[in-house]
């Protein structure tokens, strides 16, 4: 009995030290890339997956836009819109545009992995195309944000803010068929919510089934100089941005 308890203790300690990864069958490289898009990646704030970061930042942008929409003071309105722009399009702080683009990139990495399923290979270009509407809105928000920043008129800035508010909402919920309004009767696949649904549907079709990838694999995938993806069991570091 003592021997069994001892083995379990050693196992538990080993697992907590990441050794489970060596014992359990490792995930496919394609699934690890997908895991970076949906579960976790070590470069983002809170190590969230890129799609989760995009959702968070899209919500932050919408909240800031709602605040700006009620502002009667031009300076305060500009501050709120600056927050919208930062949440939407910021290289340093993983704006919606950057996060969505990275999610698409990592799903493309998955599709080009040697162990990618036909399902993933088919999905990657569709997903990348579907992110274009969000990227376009982010670009538009960025341009309107610059107009607000340079505006000397509260009336003009408020009109611009109304448009920004619609765009930030559409970045979450998508837009209707005419592309004018968020949450319409026939939403297109172009909000972060729709992107998440698309990814989940793709994962549900995976054979063998997709399982949430263990954090050790997510944080230890590296690319060798010859282009091959491997797990960094020896802590050597990798060669590509976004990886160790």
């Amino acid at each position, binding site marked *: 009995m003592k021997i069994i308890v001892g083995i379990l203790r050693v196992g538990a300690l080993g697992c907590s030290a990441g050794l489970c990864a060596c014992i359990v069958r490792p995930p496919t490289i394609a699934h690890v890339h997908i895991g970076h898009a949906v579960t976790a990646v070590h470069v983002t704030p809170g190590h969230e997956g890129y799609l989760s970061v995009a959702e968070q930042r899209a919500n932050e942008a919408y909240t800031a836009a709602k605040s700006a929409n009620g502002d009667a003071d031009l300076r305060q309105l500009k501050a709120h819109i600056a927050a919208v722009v930062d949440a939407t399009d910021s290289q340093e702080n993983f704006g919606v545009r950057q996060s969505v683009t990275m999610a698409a990139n990592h799903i493309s990495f998955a599709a080009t992995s040697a162990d990618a399923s036909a399902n993933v290979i088919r999905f990657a270009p569709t997903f990348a195309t579907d992110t274009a509407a969000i990227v*376009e809105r982010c670009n538009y928000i960025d341009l309107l944000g610059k107009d607000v920043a340079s505006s000397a008129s509260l009336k003009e800035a408020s009109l611009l803010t109304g448009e920004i508010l619609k765009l930030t909402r559409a970045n979450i919920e998508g837009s209707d068929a005419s592309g004018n309004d968020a949450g319409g009767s026939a939403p297109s696949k172009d909000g972060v919510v729709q992107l998440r649904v698309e990814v989940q549907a793709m994962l549900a079709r995976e054979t063998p089934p997709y399982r949430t990838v263990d954090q050790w694999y997510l944080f230890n995938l590296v690319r060798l100089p010859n282009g*091959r993806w491997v797990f960094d069991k020896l802590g050597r570091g990798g060669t590509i941005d976004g990886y160790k």
Partner: protein
Amino acid sequence: MATNRLFALLLIGLCRAAWPHEAASPAVCQAAAGQPAITEAKAALDASPADLRARLKLADAWGDAGCFGDALQVLQDGQALHPGDKELQARLRVAKSLVSEQGYFDSMDRAAKNATLSRATFRCAKLADVSSCDDALNMKPNDPELLIAKADSLVQLKRLGEAIGTYRNALPASADREAINAKIALAESQRHAFLDTCETKAGDAALRACQAAWLPGAPDELTVFKRRGMLLQADNQLSPALDAYMAAARLDPSDHSVALAIVSLSDSTGRQDALTLAARGHALMALGRPTEALDPLRQALRLAPDLVDAKAELRLATLSPRASRADRPAADGNVGSAGDKAAAPPAIIAAANGGAAAPRRYSNDAPVTRTN
């Protein structure tokens, strides 16, 4: 097995590094089909279609030219001949990835352009920003909705004449002609009120009214320019006044009051640019002083040899009997005579103009707001 997989991965890395990642356009790829590398590789493959090396060489040649779609096609055509070949599979994966990357970057470019268009459209429609309307129309020429939005903006800015012209441009492609005609009728009635102010009042209000009433091609366009010239001259804005008179002269080159104003203002402003010199030459011809017209017309053509009207005018001035005498070394002393009334006879005018009657001209090419 493991070695094969490693080889395939290595190949992917090498191929991705080897092929340029700048994708070529379909037109460029069509032209690239004639490149020696591609024609030679194609000939080799046609000679032995089952030769995998030859197929890969042709795919490489397309890839080197940035034509990833063509490279993919060549590789896909080889699948039936080489089923399960690891190298071919790896190369196919790379080619597919590059084709999809190409599509992705195209969509990103489109996203950037569409955002710029959306911003320009919004500013045009909601903020009456006419320069944004022009930006949007540059991206979507003759779009009826944009034209109407621009015209609405011009109405808001009280530039009614321009607005009417823009509404008219929207008419042919518009689905709702009735609505546009109603807008035109409303703008016309407002324009007439401004025209009245332009013609009867003085000062800034009248100047603004002239600007608002200016409608390119309208029968009253000449009146608007003349009136604008007078008002600006009265306000001692001599250079803009000269511009207005020059625009009027383009509409009616024979108007004596306009010609006199141009001669006077080109003197007092001292402007020596090609257009002003040509206008001064035209004006002097209109006043029947061809001898005096020679010098400004020649100067204008030295500065801008392509001024077609000035060339014709110079020919006319040179053919004029008085000017011919004055131009000879033993001139009779009539050079620069203000009383030079001997205008060229009709036959000479016809010869200089090539016999064609001058059509009615409009000032669209020379807005009153433009300065030299």
